[in-house]
């Protein structure tokens, strides 16, 4: 009979600690006639618990925002378009830079049309977009937003096309009246376009959003203004002193906002500092605040247009990243069960575990 070689089993290497423990067990058994075990720690332990200290196994209480990427892109486009309509109207009244007025109106009109398209595409049932317009609900920020987008895109398009018509077909008084009235109405709805998205996400149950509702509309308005100014500069209005001043004030506000967010170090604001969402929010903040402010100051001192162009690109990128960052932070915030359950500061964060794998729905 031939010997079958034993398979190589992974074994423990005895050391002084293990041998001491065995001796201790023997001594305890000899002295007391019983041994109190230390127990075994199963793989994966410690397990999530359902207690007043930990919540229900760490399962998220709130549902994550189910927003498609179209939504942060819409926040970005709509914010810039709204601010652009404001610039168009003010420039029309005060300055004689006709090219700036024309460009600003086209940015507003194009942005308004794109905003509507993005919003419709985001809906789970795009064919039912018009259902948004069957009610007017002041207590619903989404309803107010739908009406604002509809009004804004109509007014901004009217002012841009009226302007085009006069260029091609010659001056006419009724068309001029329409153009200027539409321009004014576009500016009036434009300020709402740029800021209401902050109310939209702020007036929700998502902790990191509602915690910051009193600054989010200002933050988004500044971001939209920054982006509108930059887009106009890149379209050729590189010599406008007014735009540089506006860009500087918007960037200065973003610097202030960044300091506010970084110094409010409570647990609700954690997603603005930690993880992917924190990285995106911070990158967006740096690119829309200190970087363009410094570049614009450098332009003001040196007169080198390269600085101004770099500031414009930085602001646009920062504005887009800011919106993605906030949406992402909302998702992370919804996953944190500790805040709605008002758990203690030291309640452990739940690690990636089997129950979270189970929660992932198949795509």
């Amino acid at each position: 009979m031939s010997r079958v070689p034993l398979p190589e089993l992974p074994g423990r290497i005895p050391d002084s600690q293990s041998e001491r423990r065995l001796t201790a067990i023997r001594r305890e058994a000899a002295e007391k006639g019983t041994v109190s075990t230390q127990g075994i720690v199963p793989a994966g332990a410690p397990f999530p618990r359902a207690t007043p200290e930990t919540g229900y196994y760490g399962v998220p209480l709130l549902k994550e925002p189910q927003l498609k990427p179209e939504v942060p892109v819409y926040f970005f486009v709509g914010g810039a378009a709204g601010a652009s309509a404001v610039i168009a109207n003010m420039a029309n009244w005060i300055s004689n830079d006709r090219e700036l007025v024309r460009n600003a109106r086209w940015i507003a009109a194009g942005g308004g049309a794109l905003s509507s398209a993005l919003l419709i595409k985001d809906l789970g049932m795009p064919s039912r977009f018009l259902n948004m317009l069957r009610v007017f609900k002041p207590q619903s920020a989404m309803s107010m937003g739908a009406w604002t987008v509809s009004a804004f895109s109509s007014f901004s398009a009217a002012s841009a096309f009226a302007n085009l018509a006069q260029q091609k077909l010659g001056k006419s008084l009724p068309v001029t009246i329409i153009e200027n009235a539409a321009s004014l109405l576009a500016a009036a709805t434009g300020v709402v376009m740029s800021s209401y998205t902050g109310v939209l996400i702020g007036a929700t149950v998502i902790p990191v959003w509602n915690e910051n509702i009193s600054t989010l509309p200002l933050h988004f308005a500044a971001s939209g203004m920054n982006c509108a100014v930059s887009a106009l500069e890149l379209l050729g209005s590189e010599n406008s002193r007014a735009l540089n001043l506006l860009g500087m004030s918007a960037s200065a506000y973003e610097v202030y906002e960044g300091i506010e967010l970084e110094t409010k170090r409570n647990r609700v604001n954690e997603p603005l500092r930690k993880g992917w969402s924190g990285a995106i929010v911070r990158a967006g903040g740096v690119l829309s605040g200190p970087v363009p402010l410094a570049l614009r100051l450098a332009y003001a001192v040196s007169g080198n247009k390269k600085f101004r162009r770099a500031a414009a690109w930085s602001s646009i990128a920062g504005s887009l990243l800011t919106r993605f960052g906030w949406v992402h932070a909302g998702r992370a915030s919804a996953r944190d069960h500790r805040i709605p359950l008002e758990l203690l500061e030291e309640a452990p964060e739940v690690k990636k575990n089997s129950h979270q794998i189970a929660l992932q729905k198949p795509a």
Partner: protein
Amino acid sequence: MSTTAFLTDSTLCIGCKACEVACKEWNQLDADGYEWSGLSYDNTMAVGHSTWRHVKFVENTPEIGLGGNAAEQLPAWGFSSDVCKHCEVAGCLEACPTGAIVRMDFGAVYIQPDICNGCAYCVVSCPFGVVEKNQDDGRAFKCTFCSDRQSAGLQPACAKACPTESIKFGKLDSLREEAQVRLEVLKSRGVDDAMIYDPVDTSVKGIHAMFLLRGDPRSYNLPPNPEVPTTYLKKGWQSAAVAAGAMLGATLLAFLGGKR
């Protein structure tokens, strides 16, 4: 029609999940798949677009994570069937921009599936994490309070299927009284940690699906202070007004300044 309600008595629940099955069958909801959570007997985890009743298994062992004997203490094992709360002031209903979410004459918060356009704003407006958008279908769904059955004079499917009458269905006012009576009975029997979950003192102003629980509602994933998000609106629109003023003012000043 008078306002109806659920009273879910967790001290009577045996965790049989008959309510989950009855709900899925009556409402013809999709299956959730066969994922195992490893968390007690709860493999459903939460209510969602295709799960309108969900039995929670609240296991309180003395030393979780350590094997061996549990010494003198025996583990406490509580069950509770979760459902849409049909809030007195409902966040989803306030937020819905299409008017798809309505209040039925018997007090239910109901999503009209032929109006909902899937904007998903209700999802982030529910302080209990109940409403969810079905990504395949595109619309949001939640418990209808068996509005179809109630309209026909019948009780909801879950309440009818519950074998221990843990899920009680009736008029809101009388159920509130019944909950108090039951609480007194439990306390007199020595169940000191029994409590009624019905957040009437918050902006939700009370719920039409009350719970009788043991211990702290947080072990059941129920928020101690749920808030309707419309309470934040005032601050938000004030900030938006300031933002509008700042935009107009800054642009005006910049163009006046830039002219010089």
